[in-house]
């Protein structure tokens, strides 16, 4: 009987596939492996080395698409997971599978899916495979567009927790309305208006012996975006009902988030300004987990995301329990032919951002701030807290000198409250000045050489750093790179981090082999950027897609 059933299944499968003319199968594959060696200077002792000596992370996605139908799976294998990845990844299996089809304007997804409502501050499931982050939902999602300009979404699902699922169930609805598309007489208006609203609710059983915790926690959001020619304005407000959790020390306070953006831009000039306030906004689909592995929402950090190595030593991450921040950025291209611009023009990028705590006051004389089981604290919405968490000013100038040579200079000044951001006990506010000088030189057709000289100076933490990099590329296939970071200002441990790497790319297939030491951070070499943990050894990365 089983055989007949199977046979029938494949029979229909084959006929079905054959009846769809436009079907196509696509996929990708990635494998990162590393052999580890000990290094006392970097704090990697023999005991810290993985017993396996060799670790590897791999995955492959396959997506089949035909007309209004698509289905896909992802297989992941961590045998065992690379250092820096959570040990709960150790293992292998199909972690992602979905079927999606569209019929009469209704778009149905069953299985695993990623989703974002608005800016994501109320709900976002996403993946950063190279960081080991994946909080995908497994469940059902419906999308429906009854008329042009109205987009409705609803979902119910549980979130991925490594090879498991988080305990809570998340339900959400979202509507987005493109006003100019809905009302015909506004179609040609220069002002375009978009509004949106969401409601999200999560459920988790209350097993707490002491407190009566809410089993259903709701949150709502509304957003507005207005575009008028070269001007753009956007705002989103999120309100979350009381949600005691391990992250907020089980206080019963409600949460709020506000994000406002404004920008002006035309060819050759762009300016943007953003402000935000986050108050008690961590939201996990398991209230007992302190990490972010099953975050229901995403709270963007309003600071510049750097790519140069030394600029990524002190990166900021949003403090969900409360912060207020500002960011301004100017992008300008000095015209060709002007005195400053020269023959090719000159690029200018200026960024300023700061983040402070929020104002927190005791709810009454006898209750300390953030006391478990209380309302936590009172906070004046418009009052900025006394404590500075982060501040950064950066300026980058780039200028092409002639057909062969391009120069880029960068200066960054960072104030980094290490106690608040990463919990360092003794380093307090780390103040750093960073200078970076990059040259790009075209030797001959398809052959180029790129160099970076970087310097970070600080009196705090690990002291000064210097770095040099030389990268040689032969288009379209090869790259070779050599670099060294030197923590020469470190009082106790002056560590060198040398690294050599080479790679081969053909079409969508890329091999990269590296040997040396790496400190933690975003690593950009050979044409791509990815985040890597600290290590010493040989690494091999293979990626392809079709």
């Amino acid at each position, binding site marked *: 009987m089983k055989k007949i059933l199977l046979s029938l299944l494949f029979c229909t499968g084959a006929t079905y596939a054959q009846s769809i003319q436009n079907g196509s199968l696509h996929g990708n594959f990635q494998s990162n492996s590393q052999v580890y060696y000990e290094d006392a200077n970097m704090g990697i002792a023999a005991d810290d080395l993985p017993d396996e000596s060799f670790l590897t992370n791999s995955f492959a996605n396959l997506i089949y698409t035909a007309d209004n139908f698509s289905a896909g799976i992802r297989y992941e294998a961590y045998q065992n997971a690379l250092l820096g990845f959570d040990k709960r990844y150790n293992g292998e299996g199909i972690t992602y599978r979905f079927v999606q089809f569209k019929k009469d304007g209704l778009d149905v997804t069953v299985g695993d899916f990623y989703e974002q409502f608005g800016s994501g501050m109320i709900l976002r499931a996403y993946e950063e495979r190279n960081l080991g982050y994946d909080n995908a939902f497994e469940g059902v999602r419906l999308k429906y567009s009854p008329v042009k300009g109205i987009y409705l979404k609803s979902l119910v699902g549980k979130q991925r927790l490594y090879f498991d699922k988080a305990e809570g169930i998340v339900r959400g609805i979202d509507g987005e309305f493109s006003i100019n598309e809905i009302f015909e007489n506004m179609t040609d208006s220069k002002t375009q208006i978009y509004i949106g609203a969401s409601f999200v609710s999560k459920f988790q059983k209350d097993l707490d012996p002491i407190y009566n915790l809410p089993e259903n926690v709701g949150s709502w959001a509304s957003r507005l975006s207005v575009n008028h020619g070269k001007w753009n304005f956007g705002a989103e407000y999120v309100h979350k009902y009381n949600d005691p959790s391990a992250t907020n020390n089980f206080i019963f306070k409600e949460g709020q988030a506000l994000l406002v953006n404004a920008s002006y831009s035309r060819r050759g000039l762009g300016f943007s300004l953003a402000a935000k306030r986050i108050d008690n906004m961590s939201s996990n689909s398991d209230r007992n987990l302190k990490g972010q592995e099953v975050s229901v929402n995403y709270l963007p950090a309003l600071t510049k995301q750097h790519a140069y190595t030394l600029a990524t030593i002190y990166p900021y991450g949003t403090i969900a329990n409360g912060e207020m921040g500002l960011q301004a950025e100017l992008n300008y291209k000095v015209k060709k032919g002007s005195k400053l611009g020269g023959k090719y023009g000159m690029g200018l990028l200026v960024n300023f951002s700061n983040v402070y705590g929020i104002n927190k006051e005791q709810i009454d004389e006898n209750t300390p701030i953030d006391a478990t089981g209380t309302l936590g604290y009172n906070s004046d919405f418009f009052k900025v807290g006394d404590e500075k968490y982060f501040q950064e000013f950066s300026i980058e100038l780039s200028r092409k000198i002639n057909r062969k040579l391009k120069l880029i200079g960068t200066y960054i000044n960072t104030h980094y409250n290490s106690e608040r951001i990463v919990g360092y006990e003794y380093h307090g506010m780390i103040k750093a000045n960073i200078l970076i000088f990059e040259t790009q030189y075209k030797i001959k057709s398809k052959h180029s050489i790129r160099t970076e000289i970087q310097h970070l100076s600080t009196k705090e933490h690990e002291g000064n750093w210097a770095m040099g990099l030389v990268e040689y590329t032969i288009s379209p296939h090869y790259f070779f790179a050599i670099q060294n970071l030197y923590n020469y200002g470190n009082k106790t441990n002056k560590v060198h981090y040398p690294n050599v790497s080479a790679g081969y790319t053909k079409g969508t297939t*890329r091999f990269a082999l590296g040997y040396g030491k790496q400190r933690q951070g975003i690593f950009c070499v050979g044409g791509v950027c990815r985040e890597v943990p600290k290590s010493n050894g040989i690494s091999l990365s293979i990626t392809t897609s079709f």
Partner: protein
Amino acid sequence: MKRLILNISLSLICLCAYAQEKTSPFPSVDIKSVEGRIVNTDQFENDGKPIVVSFWATWCKPCAKELDAITEVYDDWQDETGVKVIAISIDDSRNSAKVSPYANGKDWPFEIYLDPNGDLKRALNVNAIPHTFLLNANKEIVWQHTSYFDGDEEELFEEILKL
């Protein structure tokens, strides 16, 4: 059992036949314009001329290098082939409001879209950026390439000329 094997082989053969096709359709996915409008990729249009779709982000240096390099030769490319470049930013809400000012500040002459949660990136199986696709008159993918080295745009242009 024989029938089962036969059917499995049949399914595999037809799957393989699809995979070996030289062109493949561009997926239909909702993304956003920089103004905030939901746009489906089916709406990409260039009057039957080739389209280049390039994935980038404001924090990705090689991506900016690639788009800068194409900017310099874009007028010539357009005169010769009528090609249109569509640059899709995968920046999330941390940076998505800065995408348009950034691209404008760079003086890029491309159509810019946002894919803030990676829906299109996923549908196209993009592993890392920059990743560039070339579409023919029927909006089918005929060529794709990952990463960027100085001079790679010349290979892309050779592929455009073949269409």
